[in-house]
């Protein structure tokens, strides 16, 4: 910006702030810390904060701020140049598998469950799963609020080995990695991630899309999801609490994410990847990001003999923030019933959900995501936020800003007509075939 500037950060983000400014090239930036939190405090409490001391340095806070803007710069603060960051040797000294296992854990390179030691032999075997060259650049991913790290096919393969993948799974991992989407996000929210896999590869890999499809009952479902987390951890430096991960409570889904192979044969509707513009015979992975997923049991109408599943979906989504999309994960029994009742495409169901899942403007404005994200967009004149913020409190508006915020996938083994609802936004679909 070119004028003296000083940031104020609450003490809970000390490490994040110090590392962030360093990684962005200003390692000596003068930061003033405040007590935490500053949210939900009275003016009197906040006045006491600023008239008190910086809880990290112990110095009077306002004097520190004035000094930050007026004390002449040191030589270190004027430095220019390039700093290269090392991540250690290409391979580690020989040791027993047991000791290496612990080494990987101790250095934060795992999910703290046992991994397959990535030896040259194991990685060479994994590389047979793709026609791409080991040194080809796959993409870049930001693990946290930092500039992204880059990685090659070989670096992705090392992580796929560690996660327990077979070589035939590798194109799926490469497709996910090429998207640059981490499954570990730096937000104070504890985000969850999902991947929907479509196309013939589901059967080739023997993925489970039937009974227990979302559970730990099939190697490809488990290992592909785990690889995404290790890729995010190691290739993007994500998932370091206090540095690149700030989720206050964490999310159990981060172990191996929600990996869903759509039950295309049992679904009466076009599969997700066809909706996104791919051909049915193409193999595609579609990614989602949000807060998580919950079962639909307990939604209004679930005990009736003539269920109206669309109303149940809507009821379940009424407790979610509309900031993230709505993802319906329906058993094929439900999909068949909906088709019998006139919903012969997913689009018809999505239309109904968009029009009938609503909220009052007052409720909408009271949500934290609305304040932090949508209100600034309204101020910039972006729709529908500008219109929504201009409406009276008792006006009724859709739950989601756009119809496309809703997606439907069919997953399950038809033992009962159950569904799950995800507070999950679609982000991107990537060709798996490109990485075969």
């Amino acid at each position, binding site marked *: 910006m070119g004028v003296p500037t000083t940031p104020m950060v609450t003490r809970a983000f000390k490490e994040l702030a110090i590392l962030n400014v360093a990684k962005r090239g200003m390692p000596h930036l003068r930061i003033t810390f405040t007590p935490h939190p*500053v949210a939900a*405090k009275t003016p009197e409490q906040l006045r006491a904060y600023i008239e008190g001391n910086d809880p990290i340095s112990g110095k009077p806070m306002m004097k520190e701020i004035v000094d930050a803007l007026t004390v002449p710069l040191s030589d270190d603060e004027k430095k220019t140049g390039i*700093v290269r960051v090392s991540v250690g040797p290409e391979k580690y000294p020989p040791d*027993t598998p047991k000791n290496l296992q612990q080494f990987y854990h101790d250095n934060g390179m795992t999910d703290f469950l046992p991994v397959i030691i990535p030896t040259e032999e194991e990685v060479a075997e994994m590389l047979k799963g793709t026609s791409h060259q080991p040194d080809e650049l796959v993409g870049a991913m930001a693990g946290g609020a930092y500039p992204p790290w880059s990685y090659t096919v070989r670096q992705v393969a090392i992580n796929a080995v560690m996660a327990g993948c077979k070589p035939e799974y590798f194109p799926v991992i490469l497709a996910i990695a090429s998207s640059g989407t981490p499954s570990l996000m730096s937000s104070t929210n504890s985000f969850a991630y999902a991947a929907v896999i479509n196309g013939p590869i589901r059967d080739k890999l023997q993925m489970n899309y039937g009974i227990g499809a979302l559970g730990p009952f099939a190697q490809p479902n488990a290992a592909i999801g785990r690889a995404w987390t290790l890729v995010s951890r190691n290739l993007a430096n994500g998932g370091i609490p206090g540095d690149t991960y700030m989720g206050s409570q964490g999310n159990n889904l981060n172990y191996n994410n929600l990996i869903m192979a759509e039950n295309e044969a049992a679904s009466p509707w076009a599969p997700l990847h066809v909706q996104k513009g791919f051909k049915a015979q193409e193999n595609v992975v579609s990614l989602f990001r949000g807060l998580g997923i919950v079962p639909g049991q307990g939604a209004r109408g679930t005990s009736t003999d003539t269920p109206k599943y669309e109303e149940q979906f809507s009821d379940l989504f009424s407790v979610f923030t509309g900031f993230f999309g709505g993802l319906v994960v329906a058993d094929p029994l439900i999909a068949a019933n909906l088709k019998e009742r006139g919903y012969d495409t997913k689009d018809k169901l999505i239309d109904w959900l968009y029009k009938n899942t609503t909220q009052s403007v007052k409720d909408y404005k009271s949500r934290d995501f609305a304040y932090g994200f949508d209100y600034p*967009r309204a101020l910039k004149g972006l729709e529908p936020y500008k219109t929504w913020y201009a409406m009276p409190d008792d006006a009724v508006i859709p739950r989601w800003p756009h119809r496309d915020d809703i997606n439907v996938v069919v997953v399950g083994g038809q033992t009962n007509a159950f569904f799950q609802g995800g507070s999950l936004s679609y982000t991107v679909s990537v060709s798996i075939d490109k990485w075969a």
Partner: protein
Amino acid sequence: MNRRKMLSLLGLSPALLAGKSLDAQQSQTSAKPAKASVAQPKVEGLNPKGTPPPIQLIPMAPRLDSLDGKTVYLVDTGFEGGGMLLEQIRLWFTRNMPTVNAVFKRKAGPYMEDDPALWKEIKEKGNAAIMAIGH
């Protein structure tokens, strides 16, 4: 699913299908000699980390001689509480350094979006900035 596989999944030995009693199977298992401990061979593990970008060091902007008579922008990034904290700072300047012209601004867009128009305004009209990142 065949019966042998089903029995295995139920935790029962498929040996039952061959007419052997469970007790006999268990005693056969326990009669096996313990394996002699063998030293694990050493292997080389590969580094799973990606490639971080180089860091371009950015020199800080020259500091002011003092804040007297200067315009200081108070920038709220949009996190909860940041705006209220900055209001207290504005009031502090009014009470303690009244010659400072403290100007409050909320950065446009959500917190992660850049606001080049505001940075331009600060550079043209301001002398310094304090940015509050709430929560």
